[in-house]
């Protein structure tokens, strides 16, 4: 009887979450300064300081000033973000990009973590469901079949211990 109520509750919760996310992602525009800041944090300074271009704090850095100027010029000339990134990669090598690209072998860098996570999540859910099934069958046998007396002594002892331990938890967390 509680099923419709349950569905309503969870459906509404999901709806609210999806709506909130949609609102957040649906709005977007760009201006030059925010593009400069964004792109500056998607590239590395090539002076060897291992900092992002937008964060390089070396006074007299031989590279970052020129690169920032090139970035500003690229934005002013109307190039897209991708064109600017491609231009930098062509000029300074792929290591100038602070993250792998989304094509070719680089795509593996992005896909692998989520693929592993999804596979592990699916595997865990299936495993838990399988274990739950086994437990259910065991419980059914234990309760429907005559009684514990019909079990082998070792199994009976195990059942007793399981009951004792799970029924009288006294441990930590």
């Amino acid at each position: 009887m509680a099923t419709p109520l349950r569905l309503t509750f969870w459906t509404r919760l999901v709806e609210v979450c999806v709506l909130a996310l949609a609102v957040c992602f649906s709005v977007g525009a760009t201006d030059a300064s925010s593009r400069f800041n964004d792109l500056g944090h998607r590239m590395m300074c090539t002076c060897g300081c291992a900092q992002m271009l937008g964060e390089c704090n070396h006074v007299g850095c031989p590279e970052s000033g020129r690169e920032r100027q090139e970035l500003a010029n690229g934005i002013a000339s109307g190039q897209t973000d991708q064109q600017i990134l491609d231009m930098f990669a062509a000029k300074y090598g792929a290591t100038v990009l602070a993250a792998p690209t989304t094509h070719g072998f680089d795509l593996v860098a992005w896909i692998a973590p989520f693929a592993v996570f999804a596979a592990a999540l699916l595997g865990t859910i299936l495993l838990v469901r399988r274990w739950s099934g086994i437990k259910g069958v065991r419980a059914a046998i234990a309760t429907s079949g005559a009684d514990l007396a019909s079990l082998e002594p070792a199994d009976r002892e195990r059942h007793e211990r399981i009951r004792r331990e799970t029924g009288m938890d006294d441990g930590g967390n």
Partner: protein
Amino acid sequence: MAAFGSFALLIALALAAYNLLAGSVALRLIATGQPVRISPERLADTARRAGIAGFIATTGAVFALLWSVFNNDFSLTYILEHSNRALNPAYKFAAMWSGQEGSLLLWAWLLAIFGFVLRLRHKTDVKLYAYAGTILAGVQSFFLLLLCFPATPFALFRGVVPADGNGLNPLLQYPEMVIHPPMLYLGYVGFSVPFAFALGALMMRYPGEKWIKITRTWTLVTWLFLTCGIFLGMHWAYAVLGWGGYWGWDPVENASFMPWLTGTAFLHSVMMQERKGMMKSWNVWLIFSTFLLTLLGTLLTRAGLVSSVHAFAQSSIGTWFVTFMGVVLAVCIFTYIYNHKHLKTEHHLESLVSRESSFLFNNLVLLTACFVILWGTLFPIISEYVVGNKVTVGAPWYNRVAVPIGLFLIFLTGVGPLLPWRATSFKSIKRNFIPPIVALWTTVIVCLAVGVRPWAGGQFNTGSFYAIVDFAVSAAVLTAIISEFLRGAAVISRQTGRNLFTATWLLTRRNTRRYGGYLVHIGVVIVVIGLAGSAFNKNIESELSVNDHLNIGPYQLVCTGFTQDSNDLYDSEYAILGVSKGGQHQFNLMPERRVYHSEGQPETMVAIHSTPLMDLYVVYEGTNPDNGHPIIKAFLNLLVGWIWAGLVVMVIGTFIALVPSLSPATASLKVPATRPISVQPVLKGGD
């Protein structure tokens, strides 16, 4: 002293090798029951005593190195390269681990200390301790082998000995550098002990879960050291490197974080084994992986496998490490295959929505996070190997991949305590989850109301979006944990008539492990809130002459002067900045830039003014070569103080979890006699 140190190391190696061989033979004889002339028990005891003597020999080598550094013995190459006469005595200690040879000696010495304590406590379980001691001797032999041959700290300088040394890397001349590396190493090395017990218990098919109880304190203390080590490193990076941040996803930072993640997973999943006899194989592999990751961390730091600003000492010992890791992995796999039937689980999960399955998902997420970080760290090498093209995997990649996983983990931190063991009902879920869900959406609304909008400025801002999600999930988790405390405290309060605060304290003392753990979770949430603050950081850079000013957030910085200074160690330039807020002078800041004589390397001394809400972080970047005016970069970093405060809460929580719980009898003595006491379910752990 160099000869003394070298001999001490050789003796330590001989003793460790004897411990390993004699221990292995004795345990084999005991296992097979083969009759022999020498009693295997006595042989095992000689192995144990050799381990104790090995500690003394390793300590002798450490003493020799420290004596050499304090006496400026520059005939030793290591001392010449990592110290000089003018070096502050505290940093002379730091010189011990500032280079590869010294840090390997530190590792060996800490392992010897752990082994010493373990061998003295052998009567707890003679056979299991004998196995663990022998395995530790194997690990110790490897490090002593490195110290005696490819990486000896007592190598003599060839040629005319210079009058003074090269000095310590200026970046390491900072108070935290005296304690950060030892803390981190205590964490790394400490995981050798649960590893040794796990492997030993598997080898001897140890019945029951006693080995987990024995190693629980070791594991928790080790985890605490590693946690403190990581945070001290973050604080050092924040205060010294001068780029305004504390975590740059550098390979070496990642290397310390990976064993922390698997160690944290282990701390959670062992509870399943203790309580339900589940996840035995999983736990064994978790601790094996954690130990291997600590070795990988050392390999990354020391062998130059990946480029890192932290790799202070690089050399060719990588091959040794890779070989040793291969041997350890082979031993683990072989032992597991041979004895895995012993790890048969006693129970299975009953429901997808239960405390057990939340532990399982927690482990899943922690290990995924570990994989993500390992993948990001090694992908440049993989890419170069596969397509011949080296790429950078920096903060943007980690922020997109690791942050969502981290948020999911925080979400589980709140969900787990709300679920009962075994199975639960929808009604129970609804009752427990409503307050956190209300807190979550209230936080979202408050954030939007105060102007935190992911789409502010005409562009979608991922940082702000994650920050809102982070604040909201954190609020939900805090509500969940606090409601757990209050529920239990309310029962005690009703029973004893004490106020809620005292009842909460009593509740915590009655189950220190559970409530100490919750406190650690609260600490983690506080840290995560602090991390989210970075989405709102601001910075500004300006050249300032006297009386010029720059504005950032609520502060105005006025340059009142700039000058230079010099001492035996370094020349420095610094600016004096008066900081006002709302037109009122508040304080002065003096950001500084030093150039050390010995290495000619500049170092930033950042001036930081911290409040609970924000840090004013000012860097002296240098001077304009044309007019000599200082260039100042000011950052307004939000909620950074929460990160350090979160660490303090985590430390307190861990200490509480380490203290034994009050037994019901002891607890009842403190309860007023006029009120009848009944044992309520809430006083029992874990339901």
